[in-house]
Structure formats: C-alpha cells, structure tokens
C-alpha cells in the first residue's frame, strides 16, 4: 500500500475552490484525461482519453468540511481511496490537498501523477472565478 499527497495554494476563497470540486459531474473540466462521466447516485463512471471506463464510488461529498472522498472500483486495484480537502488559509487564499492511497503501489504513483495535474486545473478554474469576483 502506498500513499501520495499533493497540495497547492490557490488564490481563491475556500468556497470558490470547493465550488470547482463538489459537483461530481464536473470532473472532466479539471481532471486531465477525463473526457466525460456519468453519475447514478454515488456511482460515477469516468470515460478516459485512453478509451478506458473507470468506475468510482463517491464516499463523502461534505460541503461543510469541504471534503470529497471516493474509491476507484476496478479489479486492477486491490485498494484505492482518493480524497480532496479544501482548507481556508485566509479570506483570499486556500490550500487544496489531493491525497491518494492505493495498492498496488505502482498504481498509486499513476493516480497520484494525475492528481498533481488536477490540482493545476482546479487552481486555474478557481482563480478565474476569484478574478471575476474581484473584477
């Protein structure tokens, strides 16, 4: 079992960052390589640019704690847990933490690499929202 954690300071309010993440169907906008997704209850199925379909179970989507937790439900993984936390650092700045725990270890590295790219996109979108607010 391996864990990887990436974090990024974002010049946007915690609510603005959380607004990017909290809608489960918005993931194609911010996770590189996700072409589209479907959502039925807590089950989300991603269609990836490789043509792979990746089913996920959403475990937590808590707007009060600003915490999103999900599990990849694929036979390739013996275990997977992904979590995104948004923490207010100041009225204008947030910390977004994207953690991955997985087994086999190698798959943790692969997913973790994707989450690093996702943080870049989350920051880009949230900072656009913040810029629009400030005018």
């Amino acid at each position, binding site marked *: 079992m391996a864990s990887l954690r990436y974090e990024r300071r974002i010049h946007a309010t915690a609510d603005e960052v959380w607004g990017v993440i909290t809608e489960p169907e918005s993931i*194609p906008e911010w*996770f*590189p*390589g*996700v*072409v*589209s997704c479907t959502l039925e209850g807590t089950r989300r199925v991603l269609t*990836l*640019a*490789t*043509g*792979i379909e*990746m089913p996920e179970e959403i475990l937590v989507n808590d707007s009060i704690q600003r915490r999103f937790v999900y599990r990849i439900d694929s036979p390739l993984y013996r275990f997977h847990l992904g979590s995104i936390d948004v923490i207010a650092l100041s009225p204008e700045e947030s910390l977004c933490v994207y953690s991955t725990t997985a087994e*086999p*270890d*190698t*798959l943790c*590295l*692969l997913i*973790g*690499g*994707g989450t*690093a*790219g996702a943080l870049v996109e989350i920051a880009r979108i949230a900072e656009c929202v913040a810029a629009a607010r400030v005018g």
Partner: protein
Amino acid sequence: MRRGGESGVVVGRKILFITTDQQRYDTVGANGGTLSRTPVLDGLAREGIRYERCQPTSVVCMPSRASMLTGQYPSTHGAWMNGVALAPDAPSVAESLHDLGYATALIGKAHFEPFMDPFGRFAENALASLGVPTLEAPWFDGRQGVHRGFDFLEFATHGVMGPLHYAKWIQRAHPEALPGFYSVVDGDFNVNAAGGGDTGAPQVKWNDVPREWYHTDWVADRTIAWLDEQTDDQDWFCWMSFPDPHHPWDPPSSERHRVDWREVPLPENYPTSATEREALLDQKARHWRLWYDGRVVSNYEAPKKWVPATMTADQVREVNAMNAIEVELIDEAIGRVLARVAAKGWDEDLDVIFTSDHGELQGDFGLLFKGPYHVDALMRLPLIWRPAPSTSPVASVVHAPVSLVSLAATFLEVAGAAAPSWLEGATLPVSDDDAISRGFEATVTEWDSALFGVEVHVRSVLTSDYLYSEYGAGTMHDGSEGELYNLVDDPLQRVNLFNDPERAAERAALSERLRAHAERPGERATPGLLVAPV
C-alpha cells in the same frame, strides 16, 4: 530532389530515421556481431558512415529519446528519468522540419511521455482513441494540431495491452493472438519476473503470433503505408521506431529456427563463475553488487522480484538467442521499407540514420536489463548514417566519441536549415578528420532517478581512452564513489581504477570535463514531475 535555383544546392531531402529500443552495438554484423544476420544494416554501413563509439545521453528510454528529438541533454530538456514527461513545449527537430515544409511522421515507439497513463492525459496515450485533433475536430480539452511537430503519429510498444495504435489494432483485429505475448508487467504493475522459454529466463516467451502480426512487421507496414501517401516532390522526415529488441523477448515462434540458443556462445563479458562475477562487481560502485544479490532494485526497468545472481548461463544464452532473432526481424523489416523507397525512385535523395536509444546488459557481469550501470553494454550503441547517394558521400568509419545528442543537428543540416539556438549537440562528424577538426573528444551520459525510496545520480564521460563515472549523493552512494576504466587496456571495463593513485591526473582531467558539462551555458527546462514509473 528539389534543387535551389541556379546553384543546384540541395535544399531538401527525404530522411528515414530508424531507431530500435535497447540494442547493443555488438548485435550488428557491421560492428562485428556474429549472432544475428543484419545484411541490410551492414549494407548501409558499407555505403555510409559507421560510428564506433556512439553514446546515449541516458541509458533509459524517455530521457534518451527526448534527447534525440530536442538535441539536448536530459538535464536541459527536463525529462530526467523514465516516468517524467518531456514538456509539451520542449524543442523538437520534427517541428523545425515541419516548419520547413517536410512531411513528418513517427511510427512505432515514441515514449516522450509516460506509458503508464490510464487517463490518457498525455497525448501519446490518447491519440489512438481520440484521433489526431484538428481545427475542425479538436479534442475534448481543446487541443488541436500536430504533436511535437509530427503530422502523422501511430504508436506501438513492447506489448499488446494499453491504448496505443498497435495494441488497439491487434486487440480488435486479432484477439486470438493476445495470449501469445508475454505480459510485460505483473499483477502489481511491476516489470514481470516470470520466466519462460526453455530455460525459465525472465521476460522470455515463445509467441504463437504470426510474424506478420508482430509489432516489428506492423511498424514497417505502417511506415510503408505512410510513404505510399507521399508525392515525389514532397520532402519528408520519417522516424521509424521499432520497440524491439527490448524485453520482453517474445518473438514469433515461427522464427525460432533462426538461432538455436544451445549453440549461442556466452558473451565475452559474462564471468562464468559466481566467484569471478562477485569479484568484478565488488570493484564497482556498491549498487552493482546490491542489485546482483537482490538486496536493492535500483530502478523500475528491471523486474523487482528477479535476482540477477540466480541467472544461469543457459538463460543468458536463450535471452541472447531471442534478442538475435528480434534483431534479424528488424533488419528484414528495414529492408522492406528501403525496397519500397527504392521502388519509388527516392533512394538517391534518401538519408538513412539508424541507431538505438540505449543498450542492454545481456549477461555482461552476470546481469540483465538496464539501470544506472554505465558500461559499454548499455552505453555503446550502433549508429549508421547513410547519406543520400545524390550528395556523393564518402564511406567512412568514425572512431571518435559521438552522442545521440547530435542527431537533431544532423537532421537539420541534411535539410539545409540553420541550427537553432536550443541545440546542444553539433552535427555528426563524417570522418575522423572531421571529428578531430571539430573537437569531438568526449561524450557525457547522465543518470538521475528517484523512485520508491531509491535515489541514484550518475554522470559519466567517455573519451577515446577512458570511461569515467562519478556518483552523486543518493540513497546508495555518499557522493564520493566512482568508476574509471582504461578502454585501451581494459575494453571490457573490468578493472576499476577510480581509487588508483597513479590515475589521479587522468581522474582529475575527466572530472573537470564533467564539471564543465554541469556548468555549460544555456537555458535549462524545469525538471519535470515524476508521474509514473515508466
């Protein structure tokens, strides 16, 4: 051939750049190899320039291939180890040629971006599923246009799984052939240690796939198909990139008759007794012996669950037989492509450059695969340049050390283009006199890796007389270790002179060359992020 105005100067040509993956210098007949028959490459060498000492910038795929494309060392282009993508805006010789009006294609193995990318966030892994993004039909994320300067891309790698074009083709067209291939990775997504063949050698399997469905022939077929779409007056640059003879060694069973492993001699640098092997390894930096004993796996490219000390002489023979068969298939595939070019009447204007990205240990020092082991097995490469006959080239053999970092500059010179400022390599010399006059005295090979808690840094410089390596501080070295081999007295690199006081002057001079390399002028890309093991 297009000629410029009244001068008659060649302003453009056709360039066939052929690469293999993990092929040693001594596997080619023209270089003295006897196990494989390589008449096509031997013929190109007779007509053109054969290089005796070609070194890679790195002994693993991604950094080395990125150097071929960019003409830069890994510490400049930023793809510093396997699993680190070359930046999307990195320089590309293909882009320069595209801008000159060349049709540009890369067919086969690219690997500027990590293979292990289930999301397809890197273009190489998405192209087969999504097609080439165009202005009319951009990708879902808005991307459009050529990728790294290539306007045609069809990819293959070592297996039949994954999202690349060859894998998708054989999965769709010939699913019955899939079980014949060796599974490159195991259930933990580590390089597979499972043995096969007659001897139980790792990454060996007899493959029931018909030869015409194997990736070597597929790469040649797809190259021919692309060539058939070009017109006579179109200049082109085609990178035909064979995934073999990189492991797994699973060539078609129909070709088994070519080389009987029982008759394969052991490599000159394979110490037959364990005592001799261990004594040789103990002279080198400590990670050599640690890996041999199975106490450390220094890098992802060797199977995590395989212990080199368990390798038998027969396993070495069988691996080398399989490798030789794959080399022969490549030679024949190249012959088919060249025959098509000749049939079109283009041969007079065709430059052919053949090389590989790095070598393979293949039994040397009792080891297999590759890693931070800077010796000839991994660092001495085949390189042949057959200039276009219309330029009346003089056949020669260049003994001076040259590097793959020179390839991009060479392609641009063939095209008659000025050298861009981002190139770090000079055009390949065409003779020893040319090499001397232009100062080809030394080449540098870099290694940096940091994966799963193991960190290794090596810098090596090769001259006509010496191979010298310095190890940076990592998890296995404290920064004081090194290796020094006298290539004249010790061509097999068995006697490490690093701590010999009588060699202090040579060591200091070579160390100064490495310092100069580290401090060379020029802008460096930010080192990329490690996002996959390969």
